């Protein structure tokens, strides 16, 4: 990872777009900085750790569930009855601890898969009592993807701090005090595919939801009646079962004219997820629209998608290494990496 006088493509150019004139596989495997993947590990891991800690009482409560209600899905489907109580308690208690180690990047080769599997089983356990939840799909998929990649090569316990070439900021001044200049953490395809695959998982989730509405509900779904009835029914069900419901939603149901445009916007946002892979303004616009969509779901139906509302679900669409650049700049008092390193090729930046 040295600077060369020869013209080289910027990392941004190397990464490109999925529909650039090369194969999607080449796009998926294009190089990315190690810090991007590491920061995704930290963000997703921190969210999942908080989730496992906050949900600990509910997870422990699975041990007290009536066995007759067991209706397993996913990886638990082969089980004819719930896991032993002691296994549930151990799993629920271990998950937040594993999560902290995951965030720290400690012994990642072991902890990464362990935490991902623990979260997979815990979240599947939540959905094993007759109702499949859809709020944790993406965080579990992201953890599984992260566990399969080298997400703790930097920004991890026992590893060098985010290095200039790891973040893509290959400024020579940063090389003066590298802990381990030989550490192979420059931009590489092995750091790129997990992040892009995580982004693809997000896109597929939304697109599938949009396709399902049109396939099952048909074009009638767009006339707004279905959405209006869904909002009314969901709030009614919550009220009848003693839960809090959305007063905004119940008020809005009376405004029938609002629902046709809301239905169209819903499907457009879901099917439009593919635009996020274009990057730039398209990505930012779609992420903003998707986030507002979830704010709308919360307002109308009191349904919380915390992973999306926290913004972590959309992290794979962004160049997270810039966060490390800022951190490095503040910690050392040195100027942070120049943005130009991601734009047109400059001699100081190189191609990674």
């Amino acid at each position, binding site marked *: 990872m040295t600077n060369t006088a020869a013209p080289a493509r910027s990392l941004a150019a190397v990464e490109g777009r999925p529909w650039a004139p090369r194969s999607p596989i080449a796009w998926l495997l294009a190089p990315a900085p190690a810090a991007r993947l590491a920061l995704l590990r930290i963000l997703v891991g921190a969210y999942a750790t908080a989730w496992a800690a906050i949900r600990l009482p509910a997870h422990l409560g699975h041990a007290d*569930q009536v066995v007759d209600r067991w209706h397993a899905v996913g990886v638990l489907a082969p089980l004819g009855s719930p896991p032993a109580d002691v296994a549930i308690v151990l799993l629920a208690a271990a998950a937040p601890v594993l999560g902290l180690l995951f965030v720290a990047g400690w012994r990642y080769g072991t902890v990464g898969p362990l935490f991902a599997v623990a979260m997979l089983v815990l979240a599947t356990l939540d959905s094993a009592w007759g109702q499949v939840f859809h709020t*944790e799909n993406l965080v579990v998929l992201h953890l599984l993807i992260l566990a*399969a990649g080298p997400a703790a090569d930097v920004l991890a316990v026992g590893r060098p701090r985010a290095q200039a070439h790891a973040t893509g900021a290959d400024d020579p001044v940063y090389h003066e005090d590298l802990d381990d200049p030989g550490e192979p953490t420059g931009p590489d395809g092995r750091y790129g595919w*997990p992040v892009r695959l995580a982004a693809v998982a997000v896109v597929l989730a939304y697109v599938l939801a949009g396709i399902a509405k049109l396939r099952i*509900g048909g074009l009638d779904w767009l006339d707004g009646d279905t959405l209006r009835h869904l909002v009314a029914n969901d709030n009614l069900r919550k009220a009848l079962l*003693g839960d809090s419901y959305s007063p905004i939603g119940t008020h809005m149901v009376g405004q029938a004219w609002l629902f046709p445009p809301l239905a169209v916007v819903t499907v457009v946002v879901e099917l439009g997820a593919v635009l996020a892979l274009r990057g730039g303004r398209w990505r930012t616009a779609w992420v903003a629209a998707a986030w507002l969509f979830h704010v709308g779901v919360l307002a109308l139906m009191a349904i919380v998608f915390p992973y999306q509302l926290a913004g972590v679900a959309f992290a794979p669409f962004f160049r997270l290494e810039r966060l490390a650049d800022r951190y490095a700049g503040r910690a050392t008092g040195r100027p942070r990496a120049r943005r130009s390193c991601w734009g047109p090729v400059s001699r100081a930046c190189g191609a990674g």
Partner: protein
Amino acid sequence: MSAALVVGVAIPGIRTMASDDAPDGFPLSTYPMFTHDPGRVVEHPTVVLVSPRGDVDRLSPETIAGTDQVIQAGVSVRQALDAGPSATQALCADVAGRVDAPATVAVVVERHDSVAWSAGDREPIERRILAACEARR
């Protein structure tokens, strides 16, 4: 590895394309929620508390099914109804054991016009009582 994960992520899409009734799963979902029109008039099973004066009070998901998840509480009631009168009565007794009040616990099915309910008409079109038991401790 990446190819295997891509295939794994794509499986629900293939299932969704293949069948409208593709079963849901976790974490690979076909996202069937919010696809069907439930209609304006709907029926929901639940468990309520009926005071000696006949007033109906709602019970929490925790009291109904020992869960903080409202949908799972509803599913629990539905499963008991589907299992027959003895399971329904057992649910009633189970809930009554968690209620500390001089009242009657009733497993019911309520029919509502959801749009009218949203507008403030909270009384059901119909309420069928399928099991009842005393909650007095």
